[in-house]
């Protein structure tokens, strides 16, 4: 078996309109989700997250590329692995006139799961006592819980959750996060598609960020953030310090004689770019090696007043990566 639970290669999805127009939702996506842990799947609206998930689950056909779940080619071998995959795709979809329990019973019986598993799933998501109510009377949060309960009917090895905390109240969000974290800790691989970056940072061990249907970054959350490590430098002569550091090949944000002199330092959308955000004597240097900063400045006779690590969060990293990706525009 492959060590990767989810694997896509060159995955592409094109939609053709009735007038012959084409829209590319996913273009050449290479996705790799290792076994175990919680993997975040991030991207702006329309970036192709849901389309990718739908292709993985056989609800949508890929235009090109290949996909594997548990090492098996999908959609060809999907029937043999779908029993190991629990998924909530977009909003919960159940029959509104049936009770929550009836909806779950239909799904459980379709896979010959015992009715007792419905009781366990209902209890796990905290719907006990409301499962006899009709689905249409549920709040959005209850619908989300029911959808998560449905995924648990299979006792899955892989859980794919598309925006699972939508509509939940703060207590519900915490419960879902705890559930996801617990499942991840118990050995279930969770692919968590979410817009709530703080949620991903709190819950996920690794993440993939996509934009315009393309892979932008992937790795463990720590690695992704380490790549964006920076240090704040305060010095009496920031202009000179900036010049020296740039000359040493470091990316610096802060005072410059002429912004056009250092095109390499003005990479659009880099996480460390916050023009004008620093006080007069402060610079931001993109590096995870503070010793190098002190050495370069000392050799140039520039003395530091302050050197502080700047902790990037996933949100600023994500926003910088997807700065050009406006609502999935192509």
């Amino acid at each position, binding site marked *: 078996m492959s060590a990767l639970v989810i694997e896509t290669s060159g995955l592409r999805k094109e939609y053709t309109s009735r007038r012959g127009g084409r829209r590319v939702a996913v273009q050449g996506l290479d996705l790799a989700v290792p076994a175990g842990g919680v993997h975040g799947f991030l991207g702006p609206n329309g970036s192709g997250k849901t389309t990718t998930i739908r292709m993985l689950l056989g609800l949508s056909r890929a235009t090109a590329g290949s996909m594997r779940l548990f090492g098996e080619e999908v959609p060809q071998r999907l029937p043999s692995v*779908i029993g190991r995959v629990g998924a909530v795709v977009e909003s919960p979809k*159940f*029959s509104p006139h049936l009770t929550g329990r009836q909806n779950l019973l*239909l*799904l459980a*019986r379709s896979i010959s799961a015992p009715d007792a598993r419905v009781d366990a799933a209902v209890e796990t998501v905290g719907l006990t006592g409301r499962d006899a109510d009709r689905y249409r009377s549920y709040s959005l949060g209850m619908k989300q819980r029911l959808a998560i309960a449905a995924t648990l009917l299979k006792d899955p090895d892989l859980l794919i959750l598309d925006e699972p905390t939508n509509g939940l109240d703060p207590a519900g969000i915490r419960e879902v996060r705890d559930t996801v974290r617990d499942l991840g800790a118990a050995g279930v691989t969770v692919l968590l598609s979410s817009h709530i970056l703080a949620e991903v940072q709190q819950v996920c061990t690794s993440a993939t960020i996509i934009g315009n249907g393309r892979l932008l970054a992937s790795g463990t959350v720590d690695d992704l953030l380490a790549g964006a490590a920076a240090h704040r430098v305060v010095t009496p002569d920031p202009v000179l310090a900036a010049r020296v550091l740039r000359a040493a090949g470091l990316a610096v944000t802060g005072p410059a004689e002429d912004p056009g002199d250092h095109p390499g330092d003005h990479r659009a959308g880099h996480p460390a770019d916050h023009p004008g955000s620093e006080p007069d004597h402060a610079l931001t240097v993109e590096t995870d090696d503070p010793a190098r900063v002190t050495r370069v400045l000392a050799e140039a006779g520039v003395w530091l007043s302050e050197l502080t690590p700047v902790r990037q969060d996933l949100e600023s990293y994500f926003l910088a990566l997807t700065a050009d990706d406006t609502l999935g525009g192509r």
Partner: protein
Amino acid sequence: MGALLKVELTRLRWRRAVVLLLAAAVLVPAVVVGATAWGTRPLSEADLASAESDFGGRFLRQEVRSCGRTPEFYGLEDVAAAELPEACRLAVVSSYAGRSPLDLSDSLESGAMLVVAAVLVLLLVLLGTTFVGHDWNTGSMSNQLLFEARRGRVWAAKALAVGAVGLLVALLVSLACWLALLAIASSRDLSAADGMLLDGVEQCLRTGLVAAGAAFGGYALTMLLRSTVATLGVVFALTVLGGTLIGVLGGQETQRWQPQLNVMAAVTNEVTYYDDSGLEPACLTGMARPRLDCDATQRIGAVQGGSYVGVVLLALGAVSVVSFRRRDVP
């Protein structure tokens, strides 16, 4: 497959619209039989006196005398001569009163049993389309496919459930109606012709098969169009405009392909229609030579009508299942 079929039967049972349609499939035929029984109830002496007084006079007496001379025109050829005057009076006054005795043969060919068949076909088309249209409307189809990815199986299980329920209901209801008509006839001392009981049972079997086919057709078309409203629109258009279009495009020669005629033939064992397109011109000008066959009556038998319906349903089912297996599911 067995588990899936059970789930679909449960889903049918739990769907309120389906239950209402099934109730209508029992109640409406019962009303049809009741109305037939009421409309053919024997004339009382008071009814006869009233009719004679309303329509009495010279013409009525003349017709009674005419009946005595040619009883075969009034269906009284087997009546004994001694009983003929009273039988003729009864037959003539009944026809003047607008109330004929229950005629089982007529009930099968063009009366109550044909109406019952039409009602069952209509209601079971609605059942088939409502059942699965709900899945598309609520989006729960995608949820079902997350539990059983083999779309062909899902399609087949639903088709089997709809077809089996349609067959069972149509068979039981039409048999009950036929037995009720037989009982009514028996209670009125009306004798059934030889083989009439069996003819009726055979028609009930054909009604069951055609109605089950209608349920399947409604289901298959809805799986193709993914909308109850669209399906009903197409069925309405085909019913109202299809026959007209065939007639306009092909004239009388195409009557053989009129859907209504073929369905009716499949139910009643045979229908006749008029088509003079194959006749010698002399037949049409009234200058026909003796022995020239100028009979323009054409017949469609149950096998021909059933084959027509079967081929249409098979083609529809094939397109429906291929479409369901290939297209993206929202």
